[in-house]
């Protein structure tokens, strides 16, 4: 593959804008980028370090699933703990740090408003990462709660809540200082996400851990929370980023304003009811399960609407998409969003759920969402944002290619392997003629395949990590002169 030049086709300058005005605009944007420089860099670096740590946990957990004797003498690394440490590092370490950078930067750019008192953000970021460190250590050392997506010991919750508040408020303050009349679709998504996440987190912490609700109200709250972390936190920020970057890099407006409006409200309305589909067949009232199924099916509306909107924006420019590292990741992510959401809606139907529930199919599906969609979009966003924050270009097109291909192929293989393996597992489990041990044995080849694809993904992450470190090294270590527009891109636009 050739032509991995970053974003060579920036949008043309708005027609009719005089040279002077254009210069003023550039100066303004560059000011905004500067105001986020330290905090943004801190978030990106923390995110990528957590990504690497989480990858190591993932490999250990994955390997243990087909070789249970591996590292079995270490209680800290027993399967239940290491897979939870993996999940929590990835969501709260990698995911949230990436979101903090991407969401705040987008908000500042779109509001044409600087991030005031960035030092405060840096402090909050340090606090957040301390919280995650304590939490993950707690999981490994045996203070795990075994509540899915909330495994960190509950003492960590106040630290995370406080630092989150300090970060989230910044998004709102930045927005309230906006210099633009029109509020773009990305801003709606970010505002909503900033507001939804703490609500979900607080309710879940309180109702499950601090003052536990009675009986099955706990799992109901649990899945309302866990599914919505994906739906109302990771998803809106990813969509916000896609809505910004696709038109930005292609230099053309989003296809339809009205589709964006419908997509946003349909997501807001339906997604947050859908989580109950994780409890289909369980000891909860039937009408709750039906609500989860109906909402999951209704999710096809926002998904298809967003898919059409993005597709119509991109159509005819696939060549550019391919050449822009940012868009390659973002479009991969956007396409995965469509696929994973439609599969998810199908999985909420009772006839399908009876096969997929309780199997590795669901694990594959979760990675389809959090990785192929969310993480890929975050990669693309970081490729776009970081050069603008620190005024340096990515030194190597080759490393970006390795990153993209390893991750794209790796996650595709991962999802396919677990989907097939999980489906077979489900069918066999529902047939009581087949002894349970046979069901278990038949999953092993697929679990082994998962590890292999996981190694491929690890190669991609390592390339990304090395690239990032390289980019931050002093100029003499970088092959490419550090002028940020050495590829012809305007880093500020």
């Amino acid at each position, binding site marked *: 593959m050739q032509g991995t030049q970053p974003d060579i086709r920036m949008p043309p300058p708005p027609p009719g804008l005089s040279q002077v005005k254009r210069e003023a605009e550039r100066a303004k944007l560059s000011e905004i980028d500067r105001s986020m420089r330290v905090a943004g860099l801190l978030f990106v670096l923390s995110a990528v370090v957590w990504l690497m740590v989480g990858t190591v946990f993932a490999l250990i957990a994955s390997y243990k699933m087909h070789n249970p004797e591996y590292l079995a003498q270490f209680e800290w690394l027993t399967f239940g703990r290491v897979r939870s440490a993996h999940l929590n590092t990835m969501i709260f370490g990698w995911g949230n740090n990436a979101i903090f950078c991407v969401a705040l930067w987008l908000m500042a750019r779109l509001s044409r408003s600087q991030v005031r008192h960035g030092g405060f953000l840096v402090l909050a970021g340090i606090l957040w990462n301390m919280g995650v460190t304590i939490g993950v250590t707690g999981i490994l050392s045996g203070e795990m709660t075994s509540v899915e997506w909330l495994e960190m010991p509950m003492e960590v919750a106040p630290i995370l809540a406080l630092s989150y508040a300090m970060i989230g408020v910044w998004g709102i303050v930045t927005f309230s200082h906006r210099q633009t009349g029109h509020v773009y679709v990305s801003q709606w998504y970010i505002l909503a996400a900033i507001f939804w996440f703490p609500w979900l987190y607080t309710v879940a912490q309180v109702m499950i851990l601090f003052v536990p609700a009675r*009986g*099955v109200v706990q799992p109901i709250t649990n899945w309302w929370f866990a599914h919505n972390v994906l739906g109302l936190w990771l998803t809106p920020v990813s969509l916000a980023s896609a809505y910004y970057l696709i038109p930005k890099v292609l230099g053309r407006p989003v296809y339809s304003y009205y589709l964006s409006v419908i997509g946003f409200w349909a997501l807001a309305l339906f997604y947050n009811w859908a989580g109950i589909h994780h409890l289909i067949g369980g000891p909860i009232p039937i009408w709750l399960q039906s609500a989860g199924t109906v909402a999951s099916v209704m999710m096809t509306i926002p998904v298809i609407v967003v898919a059409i909107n993005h597709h119509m924006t991109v159509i005819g420019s696939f060549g550019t998409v391919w050449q822009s590292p940012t868009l390659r990741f973002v479009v991969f992510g956007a396409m995965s969003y469509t696929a994973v959401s439609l599969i998810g809606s199908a999985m909420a139907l009772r006839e399908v759920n009876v096969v997929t529930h309780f199997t590795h199919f669901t694990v594959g599906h979760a990675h389809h969402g959090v990785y192929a969609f969310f993480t890929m979009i975050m990669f693309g966003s970081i490729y776009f944002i970081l050069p603008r924050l620190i005024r340096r270009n990515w030194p190597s097109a080759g490393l970006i290619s390795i990153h993209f291909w390893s991750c794209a192929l790796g996650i595709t293989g991962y999802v396919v392997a677990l989907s097939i393996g999980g489906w077979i597992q489900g069918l066999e489990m529902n047939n009581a003629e087949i002894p*349970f041990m046979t069901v278990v044995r038949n999953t092993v080849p697929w679990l082994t395949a998962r590890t292999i694809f996981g190694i491929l993904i690890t190669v991609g992450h390592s390339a990304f990590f090395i690239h990032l470190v390289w980019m931050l090294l002093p100029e003499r270590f970088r092959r490419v002169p550090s002028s940020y527009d050495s590829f012809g891109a305007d880093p500020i636009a």
Partner: protein
Amino acid sequence: MKNLPTLFLGIFFALAFSWTGLILSSHLFLGDLKSTTATLDEQGNPVEGDPLYPLKLSGIAREGKQVYIDQGCVYCHSQQIRTKGYGADFERGWGERQTVARDYIYQERVMLGTMRTGPDLANVGTRLSSVQWHMQHLYEPQITSPGSIMPPYSYLFEVREIGSRPSPNAVSIPFDSPYAPPEGWEVVPTPRAEALVAYLLSLRVDYELPEMKFSEDD
């Protein structure tokens, strides 16, 4: 979009709506379920003198549940039996009836689970009631279930030289097993392993509730 109040109200009500509909309502609906007898008298009250279900955990089983929680058994084992005809929970012998909300009211932390890498454990205490079996299995699943992918929890056991006489609670492992301790040594469960097994044995859905009777075999 220019109409910010609409945006903010929409954002707020979207989540408030689902929170009310899913969580608050189920809290109101299920939050004060009480233990009861298998059948009710004419007035719909528990029958006087009959045992009340579900039971609360005994002290040692509670400690065992803590081990279950901090080891993360829930990531491979569910504790919920689905209705007969939906999946094969009943046919596999995982339980004689579907579990319902009332079964979980005394669980300070509900371990419903969403994975069945291993079998459902809601009723494991009736199915597998031998302490020795569980001890062997936890120490090294390959002893009881060759080919299992369940991790060994050997660190919950102590391998030590036999003293003046063998410990009464030593795990019996066949001599020819590759997992047997060297001669003159024995495998003894730590208090955590003892508690965990007590918890596993306490997992029983061997009672009926007014709203859920045992399913019929056919």
